[in-house]
């Protein structure tokens, strides 16, 4: 990983264990308070308890709520006795993944986006000129351009707090330690153990560790998530890819097209004056 300064610091990231999330949104509030982000809308969505909707330039933590309860009469004996038969309410605090291969960083033409000494991806707000390229590039739909000041914004993993040896505001605020912060290596180990334990306990039908695989399309994520259902249920892409992976092939195709342009112009211009 090509980082700013000598990469002596270990790579930092998040492990979000959704089995511990109580959907309190302290993470959303702590993030906005620390980063002085504005509220961005007072609209009732009717989408369970999620009125935030998505990550964007002014929302860098977003708690997703997915209700998966079955209907049925109240004296259905299986209803409400044991999970998961009766159903459940999934909650997950979403955040920038700080990918190993980060599309936003790769496509940024000004170098505003850079990789810090902690291995995180950060926007330098005083460099970004709001070209907007990073926005469609991110395979998770995280980074966005702000109307308020015109440039891009996303989670910095509280870069300023890390420099002072503090943990990010969201991890600090989370009351149940659903959001765990630390060295990515350590988090990976912890997450693997947790998944193994949950699978052995058999309480959940579906347990997956999203972002763990270093061979995935973004080279593994700096922020991993223990999910209880498929990623798309939470609004996450099932198989995200940093488009830069195919950049070579794209330029090759462009090269052929360039040749075609020159060749065609040559051919068509034969004949000169009428």
């Amino acid at each position, binding site marked *: 990983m090509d980082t700013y300064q000598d990469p002596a610091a270990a790579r930092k990231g998040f492990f979000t264990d959704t089995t511990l999330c109580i959907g309190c949104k302290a993470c959303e509030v702590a993030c906005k308070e620390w980063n002085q982000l504005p509220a961005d809308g007072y609209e009732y969505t009717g989408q369970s308890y999620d009125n935030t909707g998505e990550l964007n330039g002014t929302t860098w933590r977003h708690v997703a709520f997915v209700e998966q309860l079955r209907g049925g009469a109240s004296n259905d004996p299986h209803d409400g006795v044991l999970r998961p038969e009766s159903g459940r309410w999934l909650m997950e605090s979403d955040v920038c993944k700080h990918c190993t291969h980060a599309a936003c960083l790769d496509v940024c033409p000004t170098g505003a986006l850079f990789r810090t000494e902690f291995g995180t991806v950060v926007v330098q707000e005083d*460099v970004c000129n709001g070209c907007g390229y990073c926005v469609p590039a991110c395979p998770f739909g995280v980074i966005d351009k702000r109307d308020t000041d015109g440039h891009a914004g996303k989670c910095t993993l509280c870069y300023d707090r890390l420099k002072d040896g503090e943990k990010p505001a969201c991890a600090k605020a989370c009351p149940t330690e659903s959001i765990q912060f630390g060295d990515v290596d350590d988090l990976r180990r912890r997450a693997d153990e947790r998944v193994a334990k949950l699978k052995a306990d058999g309480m959940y039908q579906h347990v997956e560790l999203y972002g763990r695989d270093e061979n995935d399309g973004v080279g593994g994520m700096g922020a991993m998530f223990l999910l209880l259902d498929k990623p798309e249920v939470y609004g996450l892409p099932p198989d995200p890819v940093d488009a830069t992976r195919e950049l070579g092939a794209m330029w090759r195709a*462009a090269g052929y097209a360039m040749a075609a342009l020159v060749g065609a112009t040559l051919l068509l*211009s034969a004949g000169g004056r009428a």
Partner: protein
Amino acid sequence: MSASYYGRPVVKPHVWKPYIPLYFWIGGTAGAAAVSMALERAKGNDELATVQRNVALAGALTAPVLLILDLGVPLRFYAMLRVFKPSSPMSIGSWVLTAFGGAIAGATVSDVLGAKPLARALEVVAAALGPVLATYTAVLIADTATPVWREARGELPFVFVASSLAGAGACGTLFAPAASARPARRMMTAGAFALAATTRLMEKRLGRFMAEPYRKGPAASLKGGADFLSIAGGVLMRAGGKKTVVARVAAVCVIAAGVLERFAVLSAGKVSAGDPKYTVEPQRKRADERASADAVRN
């Protein structure tokens, strides 16, 4: 039917304003015009060559204005040249556009000042950069998570080249005297048919599912307009292209077609990013296939 989170998008659609598709066409046309300019100059067709040079110059001067207007922080436009970043098609494009603009402007000034050899040399430089200008924007949009762009990364450069060729040809037809404009007319006709063909090819390669954004919704009408106008332009040329009036009418059609096509591509991109199914379904399929392949292997 794939699962989604309340039908919300997974990736974000582009946030560019109409300046950008307009720029795509202007830059592409300028690039192709520069190629034509150099070839005509070499053949001695100075009239057409100079027209194409002026087309390229007009494009090179307009393009940065459009791009700067689209920026969220326009006053920081210079940051585009803060670094040279090969992994970013936009970085490469910014440098190419700058160099192209410098070369074309330099050529023009040199010409006016009478420094002909310098002018010719700079024209060659511009012509070398021209094809990059015409195709890098295709790489730029393909290098994102927008499904309908990324999946068409093999075909988009050809679509853009066809449009550029047609555009340069149309401009030459419009602004050059009829006598010297024949190569331009041919470029226009060929480009118009090529545009229709390459977009058709792109759609086919995308497949019925992924090509939906071009067939339904806002992009469909834009694309339909582009198709119609490009074919109309081509047919007009085949039928009565020798008449200057007809040729010029056809040129206008072809220019409109090129512009509409760029808008169609951007619009389709937005639609495909806005509906989660275009992101989720192919990825779910891929993930499942990989999982079962792994299972078989182990």
